[in-house]
Structure formats: C-alpha cells, structure tokens
C-alpha cells in the first residue's frame, strides 16, 4: 500500500529565499505527526506543499502513490478527490473565513465538492453541532472572537470528513480552554485511519497530539523520533531553537539551564 505522503528530496524558495532544502520524509495512513520547528523553519511551507498549494522546484511529492504536480491538480476528478481527502487549517483563521455567515463558511467546501443540497445542509448542521458552534450559525465570521474563529475554521474542513488533516499552529493565540478543546479533538482521532499532521512549536502539546515527531530546521529534517525521544533531547531542542538557556539566580548564585515554556517545573541543585 503506498504511503499517504512520500516526500523525496524537495526544495522550495520564495523568490530568492530558500524555505525548504532537500527535505525527505514519509507519512503513513493513520500517523499522528508533529512538525516541530522554530519560526521560519519551513513548517508552514511544507504543509502547503503537502496540500498541493505550492509545488516544489525540485524533488517529488506523492499522495497515496499519485504525484502532486500542478498538471495533475488541473484534472478536475483528481483535484476534487484530493481536496476532499486532504484538508488544511491555516494558522491565521481570518484568511480561511471569507463567507457572509458561519453556515455559508462551513457549507463552502461541500458545495465545491458538488454534494447534493440535502447532504450539504445535513453535514453542516452535524458539524456545527459537533464543534458546539450551532449558536454562531448566522453570525458573520469576521465578527467572531479568536477562539470562535479557530473553531469555525476547523469546522469548515472537518465537514468534509477528510482522511488527512493538516493543522498549522492550531493552538497558537488561543486561550487555555480553547487550546485544550483543540488538543482533545486531535486526541479523538488516535487509533483511527485519519492522518493528522500538526505544525507547532508548542512543546507542551506534542505528546498529546503526535506519535511521531519531525524536527525541522532551516527547511530540512533535523531529527525524527517518538515524542519522548525528541522532547528528552535538550541539545537537539536547543539547536532547533525550541528551547533556550534560562539564566536566573538562587540565593545570589547565577546559573543557567535549558528552558521551554511548556514545562513549568524543574529541579535545582542547591
């Protein structure tokens, strides 16, 4: 059975600025993957390449054995099938919410897939209810709070029941309660056939949302492993700019140690 995504030695640049350099990775069906990296490490670009919004200048990407190329995406049958099975939630929900009401927003994807009107209405109602946002049904999305926008953005892709979910910083800028709701949602898919790929730099959620971790740095894979292997490797996290040396004093004695904002407790030797 072909891999969900097979990424082979790809490169991508924004005009003259390289964002991805010789990156290779493989993601299987049902994987829950975290792409860990500091700002500018290439996480968002990689997600857009996996969603066939950008196409690499070198190397190849396949989805279930089918090449993700511009030409292939021009074919309506493949394009509709791919867009139904793979969904991307953007980091900034504002760019994803462009319809007059929340209902229209969630219905946008199913309508593009040319589902019957009855199916669209039924699925949208079910999704609004599942995401506990039925009360926002007639509200304009650009008038919602940050947390509400994120939930509507999630609903707008979940309505298609995609096989692969690409999440770009899903918990960024959310309050703690909304963060935990998003994490709970991702946890629900554990053990199912759904593939979830989450780009984040928030170490504290990694163990909850992923079984495999790729650490990205300067557009390439720096390390791969289980969450516990990656999170216990302080040198690696320090080199990837995911933690920093924290200097402070105890009883007049200055000392420093690696520090991440996700792990609030640490022991000190006196």
């Amino acid at each position: 059975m072909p891999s969900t995504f097979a990424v082979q030695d790809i490169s991508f640049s924004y005009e003259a600025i390289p964002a991805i350099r010789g990156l290779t990775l493989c993601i299987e069906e049902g994987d829950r993957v975290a792409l860990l990296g500091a700002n500018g490490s290439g996480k968002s670009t990689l997600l857009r390449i996996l969603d066939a919004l950008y196409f690499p200048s070198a190397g190849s990407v396949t989805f279930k054995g089918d090449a993700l190329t511009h030409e292939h995406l021009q074919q309506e049958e493949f394009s509709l099938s791919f867009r139904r099975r793979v969904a991307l939630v953007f980091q900034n929900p504002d760019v994803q919410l462009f319809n007059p009401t929340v209902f229209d927003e969630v219905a946008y994807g199913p309508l593009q897939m040319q589902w019957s009107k009855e199916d669209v209405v039924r699925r949208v109602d079910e999704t609004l209810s599942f995401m506990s946002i039925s009360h926002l049904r007639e509200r304009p999305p650009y008038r919602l709070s940050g947390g509400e926008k994120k939930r509507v953005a999630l609903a707008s892709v979940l309505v298609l029941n995609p096989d692969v979910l690409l999440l770009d910083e899903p918990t960024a800028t959310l309050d703690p309660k909304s963060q935990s709701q998003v994490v709970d949602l991702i946890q629900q898919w554990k053990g199912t056939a759904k593939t979830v790929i989450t780009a984040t730099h928030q170490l504290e959620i990694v163990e909850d949302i992923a079984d495999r971790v790729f650490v990205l740095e300067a557009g390439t894979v720096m390390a791969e492993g289980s969450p516990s292997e990656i999170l216990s490797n302080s040198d690696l996290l320090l080199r990837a700019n995911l933690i920093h040396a924290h200097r402070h004093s105890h009883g007049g004695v200055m000392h420093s140690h690696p520090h991440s904002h996700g792990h609030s407790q640490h022991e000190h030797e006196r």
Partner: protein
Amino acid sequence: MSRHSFLKSTVRGFAQAVSKALQSEHATTQKGLLQQLDPRVRVIGVFALVVSVILCRRLEAIAAIFLIAIALAVASRVRLGLLAKRVWLVVLGFSGVIALPALFLTPGEPLFTAPALHLSISMQGVRTAAFLILRVETAATLTTVLVLSTAWTHILKALRSLHLPAEVVTMLAMTHRYLFLLIETANQMFESRQSRAVGIVSGSAQRKMTARTAGVLLSKSIELSHEVYLAMLSRGFRGEVRLLTDFRLRPRDYVALTAFVFTSCMAAWIGR
C-alpha cells in the same frame, strides 16, 4: 474636523466602512420587490436600464429612468437617505467637478454673465453638465440599488450563469473578500498607531504617517489576499460560484424581465 483629530477620524471612517457593509448585507434580506426576483433577472434588468441611460440623448428620458430607479429603491426597501448619502452626494461631487468646465466652455446662448471675470454660462453648457451629472447619478443609483438588494454571492452566481468568464467572477469575488481584510487590517494599524501616539501630533505629520501606513497596508493586503486565495483553493475552489440556493425562473420573473427590457427599449427609443 480639528487638525488634531485626523488619525481619530480615519479610524472612525474604517469602523463606519465595516458598519456600512453590514447594513448592506441586512438590506439584501428585506422582503422587497427586487429581493423577490431571480438574481439573474435583477442583473439583466439593471444592466438594460443602465444601457438605455447611456443611449438616451434627451434629458427628460434620463430623468424618467432616474425616477424609475428611485421607485425600485423604495419598493425594494432601500432607504433613500442611504442612497442620498452614499450615492447622490458623492456622485454630485465627483461628476460636478468634471462637468463644471462645460458650463463655461460650451459655446451657445449666454444664460448668465459675470462681467468682472469675463465668464458666461451658456444654455447649452448647462444642458451638457446636466446630462453628465444625471447620467452618472442614474447609473450609480441603479447599480447601488442592485447591490443593496442582492447578496454579493448571488450577483456573482448570476454573472457566472450569464456566461461571464470564471476568471472575471473570481477577480470580483476576491475583491470583495479582500476589501473586508483591508478594512480590518487598516483599522488595526491605525488603532496601534493611535495607542502609541503621545502628545499633540501636527496635522501634516499625521497625514505623512497615514500615507506611509497606506504603503505598508497595500503590501500586507496583497499578501493576505494571496492567502485567502490559497484557502479557497484548498477547499476545492475551481473558479465556479456554487451556492445552496438554486436559481429558478418563476412567472413573476418573466413578467419583471419583460417589464425591464420593454422600459429600457422605450426609454432608449424616446430619448434617441
């Protein structure tokens, strides 16, 4: 406007722009005459009337279409006060400036002469200026009534079903979405500036700052609109406007379409 309130009034202006957009959306849901017609009939009808306004060469005929536009607005529950503020005064200002030289430059029978300035206004000049202003006022009123009585997505779908190329419809759709992001981003940028402004900043300094902000805003907006387009592609957009509501022509739509086309032809013929 006080010279110190330039920034504040700009921020207020952006907030008002959003509020006006929301008012427009509200008008499209009213149960008025145009709202009950198929959007394609509305688009064709308004287009036919605008074409007849362009073809008319008699002031009385254009004035008659202007009255029809007002009647359509009233029957479609579009507030005349809103039209006066958003269309009539604005158009009068713009087209008035363009028409002003015609009053003095068009040769003909003098109507009024200012001896000190050696300037005279001719009867033909007044007619030329009145033609220009009334044509623009009527066309702008008709299109505004259409926009205020029809959801933007319905206008786009109607244009697409009338075989306007998908690329043009996509551009219009993007422009609409881009406008909201532009207004919101601009508002945030001005609020951020205002929150850091200390003491009294002169009017000219504020205007310079506004001009610089406009440049930054343009770059930001282009980036954001690109992101919006990617988000649309990601959810399956391929240039077609797809809506839950199906357009279906009913008997009243055929009657309205006939009335629009007949009125437009008559106006063009009488005004020839």
